């Protein structure tokens, strides 16, 4: 009943305080404008000048690492790029791409570490400035300041203040690898006759539906019979999208009306799958920001209802976009709390983002990364291999 008082506090604040807050915020606004006034009084050019100046300054003395990402870019040609883009029509090329490997995709974007180590190579030992640069490089991969700081501290403890570049690289690789958790990286399936249920969850736009299509294809290739539940009944045309993927793989989709209760769509699909003897039910869900309580409640309900069905929920996969920054940690925390996540799918790893937040998630919550998305093709999905991920991130032990 603690919360009763909190509620009281809240509406007292809101009831009485709204007016007060409003005046206060007006004051803030006035204060801001007062402060702004001299700036605004300047010429238009005056306003634009600092930004331009700043950006060029940033380019000149700022992190040359990111520069290197762009410079490093003779991207290895993929089958996708060889296709004439002008011939691109409704659903092209999805089928045609050969499986992509994690290292070839990541090495395209490994810029930062590669350039760091190539610089280090010429030096006798690591100097303080280079320790800073190492930390910054780790941060650039979206590992976050906490994990990056820990890693640098630990490396210094292990190696002393001025190790050789080779020793540093070896210790860095070993340390990064040790941050991954022990959890199973293979998708788990029900040992008995029940259909295995795989829930795919995540925030908006991370690639849940695309992942469903790819996983369906993967499982079909493994000889399992798959059914898809079109549980995203919210987003316009989500059902159509999953339908296209399904028709490419020849998988049956069960869908409800737009706006239908997703839990019931998923339940019906599982029952149907049980009746026809499918092995796996892949459940798409609507994208939801972890701050939306009602949608997270909906997700809990989906999880509960799926558990009560005649299937067995063997996987709850949280899809994380590799471009995501530190908010990924919040996503993992809240989604895990609501739906008991069993693993992570890290998507869009074929871009320039390094997906370092996934490592932070693994080390913080012990949720294993199970799959990585590496492109828009049906086969652009790979099992996650921590060693390959670290090797691709830090750069291969080859002569640079």
């Amino acid at each position, binding site marked *: 009943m603690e919360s009763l*008082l909190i509620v009281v506090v809240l509406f007292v604040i809101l009831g009485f305080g709204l007016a007060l807050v409003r005046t206060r915020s007006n004051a803030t606004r006035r204060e801001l404008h007062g402060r702004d006034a001299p700036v605004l009084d300047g010429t238009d050019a005056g306003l634009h000048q600092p930004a331009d100046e700043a950006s060029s300054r940033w380019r000149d003395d700022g992190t040359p690492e990111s520069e290197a990402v762009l410079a490093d870019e003779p991207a290895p040609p993929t089958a996708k790029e060889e296709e004439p883009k002008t011939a691109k029509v409704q659903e092209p090329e999805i089928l045609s791409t050969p499986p992509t490997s994690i290292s070839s995709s990541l090495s395209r974007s490994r810029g930062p570490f590669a350039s760091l180590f190539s610089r280090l190579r010429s030096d006798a030992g690591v100097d303080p400035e280079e320790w800073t640069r190492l930390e910054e490089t780790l941060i650039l991969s979206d590992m976050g300041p906490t994990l990056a700081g820990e890693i640098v501290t630990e490396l210094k403890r292990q190696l002393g203040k001025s190790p050789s570049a080779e020793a540093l690289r070896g210790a860095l690789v070993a340390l990064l690898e040790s941050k991954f958790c022990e959890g199973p990286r293979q998708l788990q399936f029900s040992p008995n006759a029940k259909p295995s249920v795989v829930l795919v969850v995540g925030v908006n736009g991370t690639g849940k539906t695309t992942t469903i299509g790819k996983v369906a294809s993967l499982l079909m290739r493994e000889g399992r019979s798959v059914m898809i539940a079109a549980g995203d009944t919210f987003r316009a045309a989500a059902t159509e999208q999953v339908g296209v993927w399904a028709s490419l793989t020849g998988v049956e989709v069960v869908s409800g009306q737009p706006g239908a209760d997703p839990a019931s769509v998923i339940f019906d699909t599982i029952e149907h799958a049980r009746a026809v003897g499918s092995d796996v039910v892949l459940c798409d869900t609507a994208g939801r920001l972890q701050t939306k309580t009602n949608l997270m409640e909906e997700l809990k309900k989906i999880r509960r209802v799926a558990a009560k069905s005649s299937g067995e929920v063997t996987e709850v996969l949280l899809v994380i976009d590799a471009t995501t920054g530190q908010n990924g940690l919040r996503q993992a925390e809240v989604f895990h709390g609501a739906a008991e996540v069993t693993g992570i799918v890290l998507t869009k790893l074929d871009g320039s983002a390094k997906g370092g937040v996934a490592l932070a998630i693994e080390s913080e919550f012990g949720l294993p990364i199970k799959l990585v998305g590496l492109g828009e093709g049906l086969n652009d999905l790979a099992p996650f291999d921590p060693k390959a991920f670290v090797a691709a991130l830090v750069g291969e032990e080859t002569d640079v």
Partner: protein
Amino acid sequence: MFETLGERLEGALSRIRGKTRLTQADVDEALGEIRRALLEADVNIGVVNLISERVGAAAVGAMTSPSLTPGQQVVKAVHNELIDVLGQETYRIRFASTPPTVLLLAGLQGSGKTTAAAKLALLLRRQGRSPYLVAADLARPGAVRQLEILGAQAGVPVFSEPSTPVEVATKGVAEARRLARDVVIIDTAGRLAIDDALMDEVSQIQKATQAHLRFLVIDAMIGQDAVVTARAFDERLELSAVILTKLDGDARGGAALSVKEVVGKPIAFASVGEKLEDFEPFYPDRMASRILGMGDVLSLIERAQDTMDEDVAKKGADRLRSGHFDLEDFLEQLRQVRRMGPLKGVLSMLPGVPKELKNQEIDEAEISRIEAIVSSMTKAERKNPSIIDVSRRARIAAGSGTTSLQVNTLLKQFRDMNKMMRQMGVGPPSATRSRAKSKRKKRR
């Protein structure tokens, strides 16, 4: 999970309070906290280095000020710097002198281009324009259909045909001209900044349509990669501005700062919800507060205005003040507050709420239970809880799926609260006082 910069700085600076001379170590520690806060907000590391350098002098000044809260002074200095970086003015679309004005939306996969296109169309339509949507995302299955559905919801026609993106865009603009629409919004497929073929395609669309304004759509959750992406798109398209999406989440949105600093392009619009209306001009001062985790007062007010019925709020406040606050009022207010979203979220947006209260786990299920109990009472019982006897209590418990004991506890709490309120109700109502009091009570 993340402490706000203010909280961290207070911790770091509490030791130097009262010192007459600051050591370099003190300054470094404060700057380190600023850096960390910005990095946790996903501001690009290069931009962080620049900002902490610039803010250094101001921070030292603030730290030595005789203020009781040097931490807050430093935060203010950083806040001002962030606003400076983000720019002062709200962006305005400059419409072409000869319509239609062509707007091109581009960005990474999943950043929210299609939704942003429809939202922007609705916004423009409400401003009296006649927008036209062009569905040039032929890569993602279902994207065209999605835009058609959203367009219909926004009351804006959508052009599509199964050809190539460049052709669709070109024909779409021509069709808009024929129909005398004055703004064309072209939705394009998501593409990675390092995918040369697709980046070529988007510049071809740009060349073919001569789009007047090119918007980059960026997800507020994006991390360090934001600058790489923004720079790559800027090189190809010469961006006009940026649209920041998914700001209704709890991402701090440091990307806004990075992008503005690195490519120098303003943030034009912010997408703040799932509904088509949830799209608004971008306010630099709010964003600066958000990046620093300072509690977004203005957003709170707006959300309150959106969801709260002012009359109901006023009535509740009046009843509270006059000491006639019954369970009926309580239920009304409770529902009202809950409509604003999760209580923890609402609390976190309130400035000046002490840390203990903010970190308090608020069990939404518990609050639902309270709501259920009160809902299970009759009107008469809510007006006059003293009539609730054993049998009524049993009925309420059964109706709300709770126990008589829980009903009893709630009634007792409510009586205590009312007593407390009545004590405070004496004299002119002062929000700050009542707030402080009820909090003090809570901590016990």
